[in-house]
């Protein structure tokens, strides 16, 4: 079992420091009334202490590079190392965002071509790379829907329809954009309840936000009918690209009739999750929404690339970041797409779906219940442990925590909210059959433990640096910043 590390402040000694990193002393002429009176609370450690501390902390994490990470809805596939090293070439890293475009034609060429490739794989008319995360892409999408209706003088449209299985960001985004949310139910087979959709549609409908395949791990078969119904009342159709990996190269959101989409480059295009960011939430639009794209976008005048801003796109919803978004992440996605090429894109959809269906089949053979047994899995699927909860008193959380002891990251638990005791499992295309088989064996072994020693399961994990943590205490006795003893 790995040892925990003290907080870095506890290693600190006054007068110590990583002095190779300190520039020579200089005199700063600042009047006293602007000055800080006491130095800030920061640690004083040697360079080796810092290196060892953060290296050890890294070793307390599970990660794709060290473990199978079948976290549903997150697409934890291999993040190729080339994407990182080629985005971190010194010229790319050193370039100031406001340096003249004439001195950034190399990076702009990559971003322009990335825009073009994303248009091609999604079937959309135009792309803006600027949103800094999936949630910001969603914000841009709903803001564009709002701007579109306003530009037409259609001011009464203030409702966004969201299926009950949607990611929490969908309703949260709609609220941020000042929209009301109409939630509609799913059917027992995972498809949307079209009667509920009909009931929700009205002259107040601004649009609908959909993920397809849905978060239930199945393809919405009546997507064309849904699209026609929403368009018929004057609403627009938004595609949440969280599950784009499942259909890459097989079907395109643009062909399904979507007006606007966001793509999570950190999922489908394999940029790193980084312990929770940076993401990148590029948006794509059909012709109707093109004038409203967030700026900047890369344009081309003859042979020269340059950033287009509000002066070029006067109806744009505007700028969402201090500069142009997460360029370094975009370069990683660009490298990934160039290495995969068109055929590789199609294989992403195919092999992620193959792995998911194989894993589902093997788990069902091992005695686990699929939430939607009559359906094909997309790139992910849901196992429900409702029966185990009833018979052995163990929960999805118990299985998840015990999986950590077996050296696997847990699947997503308790999402989507409408399937009880669920595990949302997404293996991705980059895992071997042996890895999937090992995961099945682990879950089967845990099932046997549930039958013989449920108490042990409920106390899992047993081999990690810490055991289950007291979340209630964390929220009630809030300790979110280190203080010296006695402070």
């Amino acid at each position, binding site marked *: 079992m790995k040892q925990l590390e003290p907080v870095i402040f506890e290693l600190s000694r006054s007068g110590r420091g990583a002095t190779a990193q300190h520039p020579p002393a200089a005199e700063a002429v600042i009047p006293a009334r602007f000055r800080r009176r006491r130095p800030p609370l920061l640690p004083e450690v040697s360079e080796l202490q810092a290196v060892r501390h953060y290296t050890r902390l890294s070793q307390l994490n599970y990660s794709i590079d060290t473990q199978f990470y079948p976290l549903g809805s997150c697409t934890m596939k291999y993040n190729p190392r080339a994407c990182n090293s080629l985005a971190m070439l010194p010229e790319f890293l050193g370039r100031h965002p406001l340096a003249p475009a004439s001195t950034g034609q190399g990076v702009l060429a990559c971003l322009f071509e990335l825009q073009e490739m994303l248009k091609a794989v999604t079937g959309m008319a135009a792309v803006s790379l600027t949103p800094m995360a999936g949630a910001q892409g969603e914000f841009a999408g709903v803001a564009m829907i709002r701007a579109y209706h306003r530009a037409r003088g259609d001011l009464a449209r203030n409702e966004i329809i969201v299926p009950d299985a949607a990611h929490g960001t969908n309703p949260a985004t709609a609220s941020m954009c000042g929209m009301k949310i109409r939630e509609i139910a799913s059917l027992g087979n995972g498809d949307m309840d079209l009667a509920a959709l009909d009931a929700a549609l009205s002259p107040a409908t601004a649009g609908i936000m959909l993920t397809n395949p849905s978060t239930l791990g199945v393809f919405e078969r009546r*997507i064309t009918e849904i699209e026609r119904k929403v368009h018929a009342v004057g609403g627009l159709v938004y595609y949440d690209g969280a599950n784009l990996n499942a259909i890459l190269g097989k079907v395109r959101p643009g062909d399904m009739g979507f007006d606007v989409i966001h793509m999570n480059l950190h999922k489908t295009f394999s940029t790193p999750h980084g312990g929770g960011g940076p993401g990148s939430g590029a948006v794509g639009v059909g012709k109707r929404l093109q004038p409203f794209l967030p700026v900047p976008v890369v344009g081309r005048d003859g042979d020269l690339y340059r950033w287009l801003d509000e002066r070029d796109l006067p109806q744009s919803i505007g700028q969402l970041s201090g500069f142009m978004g997460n360029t370094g992440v975009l370069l990683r996605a660009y490298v990934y797409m160039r290495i995969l090429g068109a055929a590789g894109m199609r294989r992403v959809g195919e092999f992620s779906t193959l792995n998911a269906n194989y894993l589902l089949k093997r788990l069902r053979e091992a005695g686990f219940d699929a939430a939607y047994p009559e359906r094909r899995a997309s790139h992910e699927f849901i196992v429900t442990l409702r029966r185990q909860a009833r018979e052995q008193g163990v929960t999805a959380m118990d299985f998840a925590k015990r999986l950590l002891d077996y050296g696997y990251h847990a699947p997503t638990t308790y999402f989507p909210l409408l399937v009880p005791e669920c595990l949302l499992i997404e293996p991705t295309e980059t895992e071997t059959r042996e890895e999937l088989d090992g995961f099945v064996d682990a879950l089967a072994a845990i099932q046997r433990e549930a039958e013989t020693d449920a108490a042990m399961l409920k106390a899992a994990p047993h081999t990690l640096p810490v055991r289950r943590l007291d979340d209630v205490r964390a929220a009630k006795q809030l300790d979110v910043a280190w203080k010296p003893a006695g402070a």
Partner: protein
Amino acid sequence: MPYIPHTDEDVRAMQERIGIRDIDELFDEIPKELRIDSLPGVPGALTEMEVARLMAERAASDGRLLNFIGAGAYEHHIPAPVWAITTRGEFYSAYTPYQAEASQGTLQVMYEFQSMIAGLTAMDVSNASLYDGASALAEACLMAVRAHRRSKSARILVPSTVNPTWRRVARVITEGQGLMLEELPYCTEQGTTIPQSLARYAGQDITALVIQQPNFFGQLEDVDALTRWARANGAQVIAATNPVSLALLAPPGEWGEGGADIACGEAQPFGVPLSSGGPYVGFMATRMEHVRQMPGRIAGRTLDLDGKTGFTLTLQAREQHIRRGKATSNICTNQGLLMTAATIYLSLLGPVGLARVAAACVARTQELVDALTAQGGVRAAFPGPRFHEAVLLLGRPVAPVLESLAAEGIAGGYDLARDFPELGPALLVCATETRTSADIEAYAGALQRTLGRAAAA
């Protein structure tokens, strides 16, 4: 097949197990008329070697300029350990730490980052980062409206000395929720906000006042007077600060008598490369009384079943995955990797190193201003104290001067023509600890040649 490990035998065996003859059968629930069988517009695959060649050529074509631009992104030395450790797979390829027991590394880094930001800003609590400085200011405005229960107006005063892009971004992000961001004028002689200009808002319901320190021009605002006005008039104070400057300058928690309510800003200067604009890392800190209104991830220290100390995400009831449409923000993640870099950076610099970086920035910028204004026709726009940026008045259009400097390998600054036309041709320049006297002389020489050519023409 790049990154796909399946052998032919794997595919055969897996298809057989599933009960299909071809992978394509797995897509039989997708209506046929929607399916495609090729991707025109996506080029063919390249090997890693070929892409490496392409990227190296493109990087080389961009070259490396001697940089004197700031305007919201700053070039600082990045200690070698920062990215060597940050790009370790265990940080780089992990997800948001929902499974706390398997994510103690990321969670503890979050806790340490929060502690360092709280220390720098002299605020009680910090979150574990936001996307960038501009969006952090937008989130701070939204938060102020939630946190200020007596104010009903959602009016926020924003001096025009606040970064103009940040102002634009804040407007875009807050517009849907009905916030009104109202601009305050500045003194074109001093380059700072005039506290007396607030007088006309006395007695009105103002939710918050934004104060950027140092301001976009690099000048130091009278933060104490501005904060006192806000306190006396029932408005909250949102501080937007360059965190490097906080090693030297009074922290937001100590402004005026009561301090700011929310401190936010851009932590890119802490070990994050310029990288054409991102990814960067926003920060936000506040007083304990407002913590439940703060957006973004927060890590907390707690105990495990054995009573051992550990870390977990806390106050998640604020967040979208729990609260959905009623969340404090739609933010899903923080800026984990960049936060990790910033935390390692701060641990290496410490209070002494960071104060030296800040002091060197002030000194180098003064040296730069002296060198550039030694030539005829160039003068500093504002006389007062500044941090590491300065506005220079050139007396002739800035854009061609910058193009000419770029041709000599110098990124000479940021043209203020778009956002501050009232200043006439004005250039915002910056020098950090990374600029040497030789660099500054090189810039001065190039500027002299450029202006000389322009005068001769």
